[in-house]
Structures are given as C-alpha cells and as structure tokens.
C-alpha cells in the first residue's frame, strides 16, 4: 500500500515531472495508449541520471498517473492542468455550455416543486434545496471557469492557426471550422433572444424572484434564491462576454476559411470543366446563364433593312394627292366659345355690377348663366374683383338657364 501524500508533495511531483506528464498527455490526445514499460523506456532516454522506476512510483503515489493493468494514463484533473499549463487545453464546446445551463435551470424548477410539496416539513425541504443549490453553484462555477478558459484557448490558438494557414491549408480549414461551428456557433444560437434556453432563463428568473419573497420559504431558502439568481445572471454575462471576445478573435479566420473553401471549390469545378471540354464538350451555358443580346425594338434589323430597300424598286409615283372633304361642322358650331371677360369689357375700366353686365352683353345671348358666372368670378391678371358687401343680395337669371344665382354684386375694375 502506497504512503499517503499531501498537497505539497503532490504539487512537487507534478511540477518536477511536468514534462513527462505532458509527453504522456500528448500521446493520449493523439489516441495512443502507453504501457508502463514504454513510459519507463522514455524516462530512461530523457532523464538518464534518475531511476525511472522512482519517477513513475512517485507519480503513481501522487495519483497523477493511474496504472490500469499494463497500461498507464494521466489522471483526468491532472491532464486538464497539464493542458492548461501548456496553453493547449481544449475548449468546452458550446453544446456542453448549453447543457450545463439547462441542468441548472431544471434544478431551479425542481426547487419550486420541492417548496410546494405538502408531504415534507420545512426542514426537509431546506435540506433538499441546500443540496441542489450546492450542485448548481458548482456547475455555475465550472461554467464561469470554462468561459474564461475558452477565451484563453482561443486567443493563444489563433496565432498558431495563422501560422498553420501557411503550412497546411486543409488543417487550417478543419481546425477553424471546428472552432467556429462547434464551439462558438452553438453559443450564438442559445444566446439569441428567441431561443428556448433564453425563454427558460426568463422563467427561472421569475421562479427565483417569487421564491425570494415567498412566505412559505424560510429566510435561508429565500437568501439562497437571491444568491442563485445573482449567480445565474453573473455566469450568463461571463459566458456572453467570453463568447463576444471569441467571435471577435475567430470571425476573421472563419471568413478566411469560407473564402478558401470557395476557392477550392472553384478550382475543382474549373478542373472538371476542362476535362468536360476535352472529353464531351457538350455544355450549353447560353440558355442557363440567359445572357441577352437585345435589339432595340421598333428599329429595323438587318433583314428588314434589306427587304425595305428591295421593295423600294416596286414603288410607283402618285400623280396627284386629293385632300378629302371634311364632314359637317354643325355640331362644332353649336358649342359656345369660352367667354373672355377682358374682351367683353371692351376698354371699359370699371363696371359696378359685373354679373348684370355680362348677362346682358350681346355676345353672351346663347351662353348659360353658369358660363357667365365662370367668366365673371374667375381670377384674371389685370382685373380686380370687388364684392360690394354693403349691398343687398341680388338674384341673377337667364332665359336659357335652369339655375339662378343669388349673390352680392361684384364690381369689375381694370388695374392701371
């Protein structure tokens, strides 16, 4: 049985053999399982002056390495620590972040159910709720840690990705696409105001707010609800801020990837077209592309011009063109010409009752009362219309009119 190792020793062994641990973690990440003997052999070549068995036994005693039959692996939390320390820790995917939030939200709903149960005492309820709050706090803490960790990973990996672009375009496309589509995009989806998770979050806020003022709950439960609400909001904000930073960092790379993907697709299609032309040469782009060559309508096309010139030879001269007779103008004669008040005044500078004057003018014998009124009351430049407001109203009529006009007399005066 191994001896009990405390915090200081454990930390010392991990620190002392960090490089060996990183070597094992890197192999594990590439899918290789190492045996105890293979690791021993590696220790011998890297640190020839130290007994390799001692190194491994220290790490095994410290629980940094776990021996599983002949195979050997680095303990999970230690592997995470090593990855973090070597700036190559993996991202927590967006879907996992969403899942953790969902778990927290369903726990809150469970608290509400516990609180409304009639079969348990308040003390029992408090114990259940305490347990759930502890679990939720751990999850929220983990979410906040992951948010920060994701940002750190993205920032450190973006410069290495830029280098990778020069070395291996396909690797670059694969890594950036994964980063965007698996780690960043799902967060954008659940952050959307209309997402299911956002709606759940609103419900959860409402539940916690009502618990914090619920008289059935005791002070501890109400306080826990308050704290939880604060923590959920705080965590959501941290995840959101981290997400914004990641977007800002990765978006230019993702745009580049989109461009590169498009270029690759264009090259492949162009190669295929060349092969098609050499072998089949049967493509018909003019119909699908519908590129027009439109002649302006009502202009002669070439054939029409030829045809026009040819028919010119058959043309015969007309001896004389006779203008046909016009039909009767009786109806036209029946229409009254419009009245021009200035012509009717015929040099007079003032007429005290314009309407009376026009009605009785010989030229207006066939005109209606309406036509006379239009002539008098229409605005004309050079003519003043003055209504005699102090006079009594007067009735104007005409034999050929079915209407009468009742108004105060209007003085017409030519402007000098």
């Amino acid at each position, binding site marked *: 049985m191994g001896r009990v190792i405390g915090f200081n020793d454990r930390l010392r062994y991990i620190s002392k053999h960090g490089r060996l641990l990183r070597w094992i973690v890197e192999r594990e990440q590439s899918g290789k399982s190492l045996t105890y003997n293979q690791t021993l052999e590696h220790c011998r070549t890297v640190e020839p002056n130290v007994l390799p068995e001692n190194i491994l036994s220290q790490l095994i005693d410290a629980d940094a390495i776990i021996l599983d039959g002949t195979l050997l692996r680095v303990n999970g939390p230690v592997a995470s620590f090593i990855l973090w320390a070597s700036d190559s820790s993996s991202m927590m995917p967006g879907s996992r972040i969403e899942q953790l939030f969902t778990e927290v939200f369903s726990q809150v709903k469970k608290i509400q159910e516990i609180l409304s149960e009639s079969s348990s005492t308040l003390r029992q309820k408090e114990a259940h709720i305490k347990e759930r709050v502890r679990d939720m706090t751990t999850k929220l803490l983990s979410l906040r840690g992951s948010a920060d960790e994701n940002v750190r990973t993205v920032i450190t990996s973006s410069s290495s990705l830029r280098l990778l672009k020069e070395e291996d375009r396909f690797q670059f496309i694969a890594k950036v696409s994964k980063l965007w589509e698996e780690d960043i995009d799902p967060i954008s989806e659940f952050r959307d105001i209309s997402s299911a998770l956002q709606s759940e979050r609103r419900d959860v806020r409402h539940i916690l707010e009502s618990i914090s003022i619920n008289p059935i709950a005791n002070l501890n439960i109400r306080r826990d609800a308050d704290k939880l609400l604060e923590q959920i909001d705080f965590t959501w904000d941290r995840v959101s801020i981290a997400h914004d930073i990641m977007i800002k960092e990765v978006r230019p790379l993702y745009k580049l990837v989109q461009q590169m993907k498009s270029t690759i697709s*264009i090259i492949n*299609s*162009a190669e295929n*077209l060349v092969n098609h032309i*050499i072998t089949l040469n049967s493509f018909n782009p003019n119909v699908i*592309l519908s*590129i*027009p060559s439109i002649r302006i309508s009502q202009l002669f096309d070439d054939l029409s011009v030829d045809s026009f010139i040819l028919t010119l030879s058959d043309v015969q001269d007309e001896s004389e063109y006779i203008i046909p007779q016009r039909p009767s103008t009786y109806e036209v004669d029946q229409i009254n010409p419009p009245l021009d008040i200035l012509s009717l005044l015929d040099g007079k500078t003032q007429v005290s009752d314009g309407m009376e004057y026009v009605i009785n003018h010989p030229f207006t014998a066939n005109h209606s009362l309406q036509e006379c009124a239009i002539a008098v009351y229409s605005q004309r430049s050079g003519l003043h219309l003055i209504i005699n407001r102090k006079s009594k109203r007067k009735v104007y009529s005409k034999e050929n009119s079915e209407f009468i006009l009742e108004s105060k007399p209007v003085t017409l005066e030519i402007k000098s």
Partner: protein
Amino acid sequence: MTNYTKKDVFDELRTGSHISIGHPMWTYIIENQGDLCSYFSELDIELEIVSDVGYCYFKTSNSSDLIELKRARLIVAMLNILILEVKNLNGDEGLDDFLTGRTSIPMDSVDLHNTGRFSKALKQLGVSDNDEVQSKLKSLASFGFHKIVDGRIVLQKASERIFRYTRLEIPKVDALEEEE
C-alpha cells in the same frame, strides 16, 4: 455622377454586360432597384440584382435575344482556365486574392496554351494560339465578368456567376491523366 436614367441602364445591360460594384452606375441601380426592376419587367426583361455579392445583369427568357452559344461557351471556359493558370502562377493565396479582385495579373503573363490540357480544351473551342487567347480575353471583357486595366486582368464580382454555373451545371467527369 449618379443621375443616370433607365435608358442608360438599358443601354449598358442590353448586350449582355454585367455591372459590378465599383461601376459608376452601381449606386444608381441599387438606390432605384425597385423602380428599375418593375419598369424592365414590363418590357419582359428581368433585372437581376445580386446585391450581397455586388453585381447585376439582364436576364431574358426570349431565346431569340440570347448571345450565341459559341461566345457563351468561350467566356465560361476562358475564365475557368484563367483561374487555373493563376493558381499555377501565383499559388493558392495568389488565387484567393485574384478571385476577390484584390490583385490583378498582367495580360502578357497569361500563356494558356503552355499547359497541355488547357491548350487542348481551348482548341476544342476554336482558340488555336495564344494571340487569339489575348484578343478573346479583350473582346469578352465587354460582358463585365473581368476587365482589363493598363494591360492587367482584374476579375469583377459578376464572375461569381460564371463560377457558380460551372460548379452547379457541369456534370462530373472523371479526371484525365496529364499528358507528358
């Protein structure tokens, strides 16, 4: 100058030309797109505006108003062979820049008959030597998929139409072995 007329747009596009972002008439077309589209639709002409990429063109359903097949094939083939040539000359990154219109290539560096497969394909289309390649590239520039400025070829946004057609419409053919 932004005060163009419908007639200016019609005169520019009726012979199959494409207007890309950066063309003097582009802003006028974008600002008046609703009005222009409905006006031309009454004349049985479709004004297609691909504003997210940045180009527009006339589309006609009247088969008697189409450009001739030989010319349509030539523009599609030459642009595709040209980008393969640019990849050979300038690598993948150079091609990225060329496709986005960030860089241009000198006309005299284009020697499409120097590559066996390209030469074979061009001969199938009746372009027998490099002088003809040069003159065709110049005459085909009237479609607005590319332009030639100071002896250099620059791709226009409208070229996206040609590459999309090639990707979607040309049936898959097994790769040929390169001739020695």
